[in-house]
C-alpha cells in the first residue's frame, strides 16, 4: 500500500510526464484553448458577416444594427485568450510538475472544444438574427438575445476551466 502511495507521489511530482515538462504541457493547454476559441470565433463571425454584407448592400444604414450581431460570436475567442492568460497567472510554470502540467492541459480542453463549437453555432444563430433585424430593425434587442442563449455553454466551459485551475496542485 505504502509502495503504491510512493509510486503515485513520484508520478505526480516528476518533472516530466509523457516526455513533456509541466511548463510544456501548460503552454500546450493554453495554446489549445486559444486555438479552439479563436477558430470558432473566426468561423462564427464569417457566417454573420456573409449575411450582414448582403443586407448592407441593400441598406448601408443598417450598419449600426448589424455591428452588435457581428461582434457576438467574437467572445469565445476572448474566452480562449483569457484561459491562456490565466494559465500564466495561476501557475508558476517553471516549477510546475509534469503531472500538474498535464492536468492544466486537460483543464483547458473544455474551453478549447466548447468555445469552438458554440462560436460556430452562435455565428449561425446571429446570421439568422441579422435576417430578422434586416426586416424589423426595432427587434434588435430580441435578435441579440437569441445568439446569447448559444453562448451559455461557452461561458460554462470557461467557468469550469477556471474552477479546475483552482483544484490543480501548483
Amino acid at each position: 500500500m505504502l509502495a503504491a502511495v510512493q509510486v503515485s507521489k513520484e508520478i505526480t511530482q516528476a518533472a516530466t510526464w509523457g516526455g513533456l515538462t509541466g511548463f510544456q504541457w501548460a503552454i500546450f493547454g493554453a495554446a489549445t484553448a486559444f486555438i479552439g476559441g479563436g477558430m470558432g470565433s473566426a468561423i462564427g463571425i464569417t457566417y454573420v458577416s456573409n449575411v450582414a454584407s448582403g443586407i448592407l448592400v441593400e441598406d448601408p444604414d443598417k450598419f449600426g444594427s448589424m455591428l452588435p450581431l457581428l461582434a457576438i460570436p467574437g467572445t469565445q475567442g476572448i474566452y480562449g485568450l483569457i484561459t491562456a492568460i490565466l494559465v500564466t497567472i495561476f501557475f508558476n510554470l517553471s516549477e510546475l510538475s509534469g503531472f500538474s502540467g498535464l492536468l492544466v492541459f486537460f483543464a483547458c480542453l473544455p474551453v478549447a472544444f466548447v468555445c469552438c463549437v458554440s462560436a460556430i453555432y452562435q455565428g449561425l444563430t446571429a446570421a439568422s438574427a441579422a435576417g430578422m433585424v434586416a426586416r424589423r430593425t426595432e427587434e434588435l434587442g430580441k435578435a441579440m438575445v437569441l445568439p446569447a442563449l448559444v453562448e451559455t455553454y461557452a461561458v460554462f466551459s470557461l467557468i469550469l476551466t477556471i474552477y479546475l485551475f483552482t483544484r490543480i496542485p501548483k
Partner: protein
Amino acid sequence: MAVEPVKKIRVISHASLQEEVLEALQAAGTVHVERLSGTELLPPKEYSDEEQQSLRTCTFRISQAEFILSYLKAYGYDKRSFFRTIVKDKYPMTLEEFVRAHERVDLDRAYAECSEYERHLVEIDEKKTALEQEREELSNWTELQLDMDEIACKHMYCLLPLRVPVADLEAFGQALASEVIESTLDVVSERGSRAYCMVVYHLDSLGLVEEILTRLRVEKVTLPDVKLEPAERMEQVDREIAALERQREGLLARGQVYAGKRGDIEVLREYLLNQKRKLEALEQFGMTRSTVVVEGWVTEGEMEPTLENLEALSEEIGLEVIEADHEDSPPVSLRNGRFARPFELLVGLYGTPNRREYDPTWLVAVSFIVFFGFCIGDVGYGLVLVAACLLARRFLPLGEKVRNLLLVISYGSLFAMVIGALTGSWFGIDPASLPPLLETMAVFDPLRDPIPVMLLTMALGLAHMLSGTVVEFRDNVKEGNWVDALIDQGLVFLFFICLGVAIPLALAEVVPTSTAVLIGCAPIALMLLLLGRSAKSVPGKVINGVYETYNTVVGWMGDTISYLRLYALGLATFVIGWVVNTLAGMTLGIGPVIGVLLMLLILVVGQTFNVAINLLGAFVHPLRLEFVEFFGKFYEDGGQRFDALKYESKIVMIREEDA
C-alpha cells in the same frame, strides 16, 4: 410601478368636424383609438371618395420623398461618416414647425427635377459604359492601320477580326492554311494570353472558315462601322467620354440644390407618414349618416387634459367616459417612477405584460443594474461609461429610446464602479500594483480566489428567481388560484426554507447528515405527490408528478448555475484590461518617445476595445437572465401595447412642451 389604469372615451361629433377631431386627437397624442365593431346601429367608417383620394395622394407624396432621398443617396450627395451611419441625423423642432414641413420644400418640383436628372444620368451612364467597352476593345487594335468600315465582305473577299488564344494561334494558322487555300492570317497585336488577328478569305470559303472558328473556339470581334482607324476612333471615344463626364458633372451640380434640402425632405417624409397614419386611423371610426364616432382608451392621468382639448374644439362634440367591462381588453400602459421608467424599454423588448400581470419593471431595473455592474466590474470602465453616456445624452440629438438606453447603461456603470472597488479592479491594473488604500477596499479576489464570487453570483441569481416566484404567487392569489399558489410556488419556497435549515444544521453537526438530507428533501416528496395534479388518471398523476418534480428541481439548479456567467464576464473584462496594460507596459522599453506614444496607442485602442466588447456582453447576458431565468418564473406577455395616435418619428424630435 404598475400597469396604469385606463378608461374608455367615446367622442361623437358631426361629420363635418371629423378632420378637426382627428387632428386634435393626433396633436394630443393621448388616445389609443380602438376599432369600433360594426353593429347595425353603428357600422364601421367607410372612406369617402375624397378621403380615399387624400390617402392615395399622401402615399404618392411619400414615395416622391423616398425617391428623392434615394436619388440623393445613389448619386453620392448623401455621403455619411462612419459615426453618422450609426447615429442618424435628428431634427429637433416644435410641433408647429413639423406640421408646416411642406412649406420648406416644393416636393412636386423637387421630384420632377430629380427624376429628370436621374433619367439623364442613367442614359449618360449607359452611354459611358458602352463607350468604355468599345474603348477597351479598340485598345487591342491600335496597330491596325485600316479604316474600320473596310472590315467587311466586299468584292468576293472578306476581312474578319478575330480574338484567338495565343496557345491556339499556331493550330489556327495551320488549319486555315491547309483547309482554306485563298486566305491569309495577320496578327495585329498580342495582349496577355490573347492574340488579335485579321483574316482575309474568299467569300466561297465562308463555310469552311466558320467551321474552323467553331472547332477551335475562336471568337469573332465586332469593330465599329466607322470610317476611322482604331487609334483615331479611340481618340474620338475618349473625347466623347470626357464630354459625357462633363455633362454628368453639370447634372450633378444642378441636383446639388436638393442635397442641401435633404433634411427638409426627410422631415417632410416623416410628416407625410404621420398624415397617412392619421388618415388610416379613420378606418377605426364608426359612423352614422351625419355623425362620426370615435372610441379610444386614455390613461387616468391624461383623461382630464384630453377631455378639455376635445371640448374646446366645438360645442357640437359629445364626450362620454365609459368604465371598462369584462369583455373589453384595454391596452397596457406602464406607469413607473423616474428611476424605473427607462427600464420599461427592456421589458418592452420581451413583450408588453398581460393586463392582469404584475409590471416587473422595477424588479428588472434593480436586477439589471446589479448584473450589468458585475459584468463590467471595474471602477475605471464604469466611470468612463457613465461620463460617455451622460455626455451623449447632453450633446447628441438622440431619440427617446436611445436616451433611456444610455440612462440604463449609466445606472449599471455606477454599480460597476462599486463592484470594481470591491474586487480591486481599476482599469484592469494588477491589484498588487494598486495603492494600499484601493487595495484594502477590495474584499474579493475573483482571479486567485474565485469561489466566493461564484457563490455570490449564484446567491444573487437565486434571490432574483425567488422574487419572480413571489410575483407569480401574488398573481395566483390575486386571481383566486390559491391551490396553484400554495402548491406551485409554495412548495418551491418550502424547498428552499428546508434547505436553509438543513444545511446549517448539518454543517454545525447538530443533527446527523442523514437527518439533514431528509429535512432538505422533504418538500421533494410533497412535489412528487402534488405537482402531477393536472393529469386526470392516477398513473398520469404519478408520471406527471415525477416529471414536474424533476423539471422543478433540475430547472432551478440549472438556472442558478446560469448566473455564474456574471462572474465569468466580469473576470473577462478584468483580464483583457490586464493584458492590454501588460502589453502597453512592455513598449516603454523601446525608447523614450516612441515607447510612450506606442504605450498610449495600445492603451487607448485596447481599453476602448475592452469596454466596447464587454459592454455588448454586459447588455446581452443580463438581458438573457431577465428574459429566460427570471421571466420564466412568472411573466406572461401578450398585452396590447398602449399605442396612442400621435405625431411620432424616429428622426424628428418634437419638443415635449409643444407636442
